[in-house]
């Protein structure tokens, strides 16, 4: 659906909508796992910003062959492959942290964890 150029900048606007929705989830939601899902959607949408403009209508996938002469741009593909890998690495680390947070705080809701963090600081006051 994205490749139909309804307007010259249609693809960009789809990308923008997806990105911003992901960003909103990250900022607004309190559940830590949901924040990470939002983050993943935010990162995934950036892929389109790179890949969509690399497409040439009438071109083919960038694998050299005697039959074709017009290829879509391979460089964004390379960059985004790297970005995908970075994204999954971040997600794995983030989830590992969530598991540890759950075990230490018994909650994965940001506000509850914050209350507990604050409580730790206060109890240090008491010790002192």
């Amino acid at each position, binding site marked *: 659906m994205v490749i139909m150029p309804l307007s010259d*900048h249609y693809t960009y606007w789809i990308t923008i909508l997806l990105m911003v929705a992901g*960003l909103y989830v990250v900022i607004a939601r309190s559940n830590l796992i949901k924040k990470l899902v939002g983050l993943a959607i935010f990162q995934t949408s950036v892929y389109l910003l790179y890949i969509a403009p690399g497409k040439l209508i009438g071109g083919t*996938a960038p694998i050299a062959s005697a039959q074709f002469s017009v290829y879509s741009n391979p460089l964004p593909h390379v960059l985004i492959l790297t970005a995908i890998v970075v994204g999954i690495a971040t997600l794995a680390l983030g989830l590992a942290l969530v598991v540890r947070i759950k075990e230490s705080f018994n909650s994965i809701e940001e506000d509850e964890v914050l209350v507990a963090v604050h409580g730790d600081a206060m109890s240090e006051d008491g010790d002192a």
Partner: protein
Amino acid sequence: MMALLVLSVVVQRNLFVVVVLSGIYSFLMATVLVALDAVDVAMTEAAVGAGISTVLLLSAIHLAGAEESRPLRYRLPALLVSVGVAAALVYGSLGLPRFSDPAAPIHTHVVPRYIQDGPRETGVPNMVTFVLASYRGYDTFGETTVVFTAGIGVIALLRGRRKKKQSEANAEIRHDA
């Protein structure tokens, strides 16, 4: 359709459903990527987005609980930030080359050499492979290092037994300094 999916991720509170939806989202993304000629990226996105991250998210949910206990609230600051970002993006995108414009700078600079000379210089026909592994091989070295970092990071965080209770840990501080 992808937009609808994302919107349901925003409102859905059951994390299990959210994870499944985001897996479907990745599959749709992969389809779009194939349509955009990015076959390598599509293959990776399907394996990573719909495969690995779904498995990871599900196991995290298993360990950390599946229900989001907070009711849905629409937070004004978050909404404002998002709208601001969207406005900046739209503003910037207005000046970008139009879709599939062969005269756009990304098609006329740097890339022509990859397309014209690359297969001959490296003997590999898949342009993504040789740009990834040779011309920009150093990025891929960095990427491998990122994967390695995440791997040992997860070990460092989750290996072995759970840490002792906070109070016990605090009690130890003064002795082992």
